[in-house]
């Protein structure tokens, strides 16, 4: 497939993919979500109407049907195109834009061949890639969500971005609903992750009464408070799912599970 070349990255990839566990989120961080693009996000559009975002944490993401890891410069799913034997780079199934992500883009993600890694998980994304030629048909139906928390965050981003580019023609009512569902899923996943990691050691030091001796954002919080917050988000997600189901909107896989999953009663390792 022809690589798109009429787009310019406003800045190069800066850093590694964020890991949810790399930095503790203290307190409740109620007004921040990890994937909500901040004011420093640069958006620009590439040839096929797909959008690339360079976010403030330096992560460059393409919202095509395949997912691109800016750290390795590779896709996380295999390219469905065969490539050309005359161009070795085009034979690589996981290279983005022939290995030149700054100077070229491959918005559909369908550029070359032959795989190394096996990430079955990304099969759904790869499948969706087959529809990218007709961008409107893209994965509105097809964003499979994993129980892996940070992967889910990425999916949520991609999904929202797809809608924001106008690629998905889905009916505005369903579109907004599904976006909300992803937002809730994302938050619930993060909060469950917070409970399991328990950076502030709230389970031992502030189980149900805030402990003022805890540092920073931990001081005004409790383990039970976090649990209740997740339950609140779950309740909200259930209502969204009910509404989506009634309106005949597509419900993202994984949503039912997150809406009904029991909240951790203790941190991992306790």
């Amino acid at each position: 497939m022809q690589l798109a070349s009429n787009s310019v990255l406003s800045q190069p990839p800066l850093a590694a993919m964020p890991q949810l566990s790399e930095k503790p989120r203290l307190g409740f961080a109620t007004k921040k979500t990890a994937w909500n693009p901040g004011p420093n996000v640069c958006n620009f559009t590439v040839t096929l109407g797909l959008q690339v975002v360079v976010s403030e944490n330096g992560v460059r993401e393409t919202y095509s049907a395949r997912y691109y890891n800016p750290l390795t410069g590779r896709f996380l799913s295999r390219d469905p195109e065969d490539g050309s034997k005359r161009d070795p780079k085009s034979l690589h199934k996981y290279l983005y834009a022939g290995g030149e992500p700054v100077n070229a883009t491959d918005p559909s993600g369908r550029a070359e061949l032959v795989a190394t890694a096996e990430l079955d998980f990304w099969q759904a994304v790869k499948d969706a890639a087959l529809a990218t030629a007709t961008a409107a048909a893209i994965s509105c139906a097809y964003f499979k969500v994993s129980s892996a928390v940070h992967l889910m965050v990425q999916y949520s981003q991609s999904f929202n971005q797809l809608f924001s580019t106008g690629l998905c023609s889905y009916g505005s009512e369903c579109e907004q609903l599904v976006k909300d569902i992803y937002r809730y899923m994302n938050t619930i996943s993060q909060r469950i992750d917070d409970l399991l990691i328990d950076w502030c050691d709230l389970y031992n030091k502030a189980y149900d009464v805030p402990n003022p001796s805890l540092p920073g954002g931990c001081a005004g919080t409790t383990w039970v408070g976090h649990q209740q917050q997740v339950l609140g988000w779950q309740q909200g997600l259930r209502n969204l799912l009910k509404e989506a189901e009634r309106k005949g909107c597509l419900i993202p896989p994984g949503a039912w599970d997150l809406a009904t999953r029991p909240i951790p009663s203790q941190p991992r390792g306790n």
Partner: protein
Amino acid sequence: MRSYELDKLVMLLSADWFFPYWDLIGIFTKDKKKSLLREGCREIVRQIMSTATEYWGINFSVARVKESRAMLDALLKRCDLEEANVNRIIGIISREESPVDEGTRWLLVSMTEMLLKGSITAPLDTAITEGLRREWGRWQNTDEFEFKSCCLNSASKWDQYLRNATPDLPAMLADYVSAIASNSTFELLWGFINVNFTAKQRYELLNWYRSAGQSLTGEPLRLAQEA
């Protein structure tokens, strides 16, 4: 996990936006008593929140909950609320005692609704589906109501205070109304299954719930107790 239904119910009954809709959660009384209760619930909300700015940061200890419960009991007595209404309030705040967890309760209700609307199919004896269909209309009464916009758009200062108590979930109390309704539906559904279906029919239906639940969530259905 401990439950804090009392906190949420008291917050809900203290809200101005919810004042016209108490009957939808099964509390039927005159406006005069409702006003008294609403004011009393605000006192309890202040006790619950104490110095916290967000509900998530309050004291969740058993001692605090006991104190809130004592305040509510005293309030119900002071308002001379009818026995049926008192029982309904106690029933709502005690729902954690159900052997089936909240997520599963909601899932069972949702699957039943999808079954009856035909959005999912089931190889069930028609006597089962027809039996459920006959009752379903009587169990559902609040679903179509748009509580969320009432909650979010209310201009009353108290309602703004409540929204600010859960700033990330300003419509939490509206969601809670749906949760109350869903739980009530579950109780009716569960009771109906137990009383009206034969052992064979119950077995068939529960098996279907299990497999449909697993298909939806990817996890085995947490159905600890047989109907």
